[in-house]
């Protein structure tokens, strides 16, 4: 069950929605498409499903070219961000619909629908209409319809985005279990980096119609190949600043300097970019090598367990993320500490130079 895109391009009118994309998806675990709105996630999924035809390029599935095959004959399932169910049919009929179309026997349909409904805890709602269900239950119904047939490819397009916080967490925890013993390729689109980390598997970072990097999720997170990928895969947004290397030191600003990191050791003096994830900038020193960074507090966002503080150092805006509550005064000058061991260094072309040795997935990711 492998899905492969070969030089797929999608143009609509004069606009290019997907630039030349080649990727071979893994058939185990989740394939997460990570990107902001308008990155092209939905378009790419439509191409994978066969709802849209690529302008050029080919789509291969299980060693067969399926580029021109209609969606009806591809055996795929799709769950959309909006809760899409057939309003005129009961929940039971909604789930049964792909089986009915396939002409399955009544007894078998009954069995399968009940089994799937049980799995998604929809059994008490089978007789109701989708409109009478809560948002979470509506999305469960859509998921049940996607799961009830043995699809080769299941596409989940931000399925949790329209759910409220509690339901989202609940359903997100269930998702890996639902797909655990299935032999199918699962593609999951999301705009939230944390969701990609939680689901694991593989991640394709997307930006403006391009897949910038595809690989195991943790690897993409730790070693983003370029600035763009690092930006896509960071929430709160990663801090990226210019850095001047001269001699044995790198200089962020007149007051902030540190020893040349191993990555830049053998490279000539000049301008580089440094990427610092917010959780590496804290109000108290955290890690072996830290550098103080003084700035004016602009916004503090307090969640129960952590504080996200936006501050300005020289002309640049920085974001820091610290454990615990730090109710700093807006306008106050505070000192933050940058864990320089975790920094990412990019060349002038935006490519990653060296990956940090000890970087950890932020605590918040598992909260």
């Amino acid at each position, binding site marked *: 069950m492998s899905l492969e895109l070969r030089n797929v391009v999608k143009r609509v009118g004069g606009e290019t929605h997907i630039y030349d994309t080649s990727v071979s998806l893994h058939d185990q675990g989740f394939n997460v498409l990570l990107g902001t709105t308008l990155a092209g996630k939905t378009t790419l999924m439509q191409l994978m499903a066969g709802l849209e035809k690529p302008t050029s390029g080919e789509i291969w599935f299980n060693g067969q070219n399926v580029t021109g095959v*209609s969606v*009806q004959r591809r055996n795929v399932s799709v769950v*959309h961000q*909006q809760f899409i169910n057939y309003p005129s049919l009961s929940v039971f009929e909604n789930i049964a619909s792909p089986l009915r179309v396939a002409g399955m026997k009544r007894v078998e349909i009954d069995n399968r629908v009940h089994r799937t409904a049980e799995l998604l805890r929809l059994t008490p709602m089978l007789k109701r209409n989708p409109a009478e269900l809560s948002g979470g239950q509506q999305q469960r119904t859509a998921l049940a319809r996607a799961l009830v047939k043995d699809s080769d490819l299941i596409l989940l397009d931000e399925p949790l985005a329209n759910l409220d916080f509690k339901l989202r967490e609940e359903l997100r925890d269930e998702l890996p279990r639902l797909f655990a013993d299935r032999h199918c390729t699962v593609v999951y689109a999301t705009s939230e980096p944390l969701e990609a980390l939680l689901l694991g598997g593989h991640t394709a970072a997307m930006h403006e119609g391009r897949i910038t990097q595809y690989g195991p999720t943790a690897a993409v997170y730790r070693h983003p190949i370029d600035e763009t990928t690092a930006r896509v895969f960071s929430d709160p947004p990663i801090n990226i600043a210019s850095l001047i290397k001269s001699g044995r030191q790198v200089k962020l600003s007149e007051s902030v300097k540190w020893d040349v990191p191993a990555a830049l050791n053998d490279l000539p003096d000049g301008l580089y970019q440094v990427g610092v994830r917010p959780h590496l900038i804290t109000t108290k020193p955290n890690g072996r090598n830290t550098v103080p960074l003084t700035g004016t507090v602009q916004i503090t966002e307090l969640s129960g367990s952590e504080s996200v503080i936006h501050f300005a150092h020289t002309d640049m805006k920085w974001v820091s993320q610290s454990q615990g509550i730090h109710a700093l005064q807006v306008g106050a000058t505070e000192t933050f500490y940058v864990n320089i061991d975790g920094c990412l260094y990019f060349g002038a072309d935006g490519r990653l130079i060296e990956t940090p040795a000890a970087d950890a997935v932020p605590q918040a990711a598992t909260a």
Partner: protein
Amino acid sequence: MRLRWLVPTLYILFLMLPIYWLVSMSFKTTNEILGGLTLWPKNFTLDNYITILTQPVWYNGYINSIIYVCMNTAISVTAALPAAYAFSRFRFLGDKHLFFWLLTNRMAPPAVFALPFFQLYSAINLFDTHIAVALAHTLFNIPLAVWILEGFMSGVPKQLDETAYVDGYGFWRFFVKIFLPTIRSGVGVAAFFCFMFSWVELLLAKTLTAVAAKPIAATMTRTASSSGFELGLLAAAGALTIIPGAVVIYFVRNYIAKGFSLGRV
């Protein structure tokens, strides 16, 4: 503030007055109507209604009207459904202009088309048939139905179509089994407006018919017959003409409320 019931009461009073007058007239004899002002029937009579329901020249008018109105509603909605679907789902060259052009058809007064239609239908031997009137009315009803249905269809997310295709539905199976039930209130509202327009339209219906397909509105609006003025009879016919509209409104009242909330009616 104790008089705040006054305005709505007056409003309803004025609104109901013509209808009351019509119904009251229908129970009077023609002599009483011509005799002078009476607020309610002095000599209550059902003769007018009995005449209408027993004489073919009268009740055939109703049958003719209902036949061409139903034909027209069926044709208009059937033709408008695919058109509205196209407008709501596809972008094509000039789609917005075409949509607007459809609406402009409703801006022309029917009188404009009376002469060309009369000539055209006579030439192809459709004069004085039910289908002639039904077809003539589609000129106004199809654009209206397309416009109403497009509003309802655009309220249905395109992902519903895609989900159905993914489930394996072909287009027609999806359209009939999933899509039509989803927008059934829209179909109800569109059918209602086609029915009402065709039911009340007089000029084209009168122009295109003579005897065989003569609508009730034509029968009703002749002021004198061989037996002189028959005002009581005409009033009774008028009262009966209101009934089908009232019945149809009763059945689609919930759909129309929905249509209002979707902003297309």
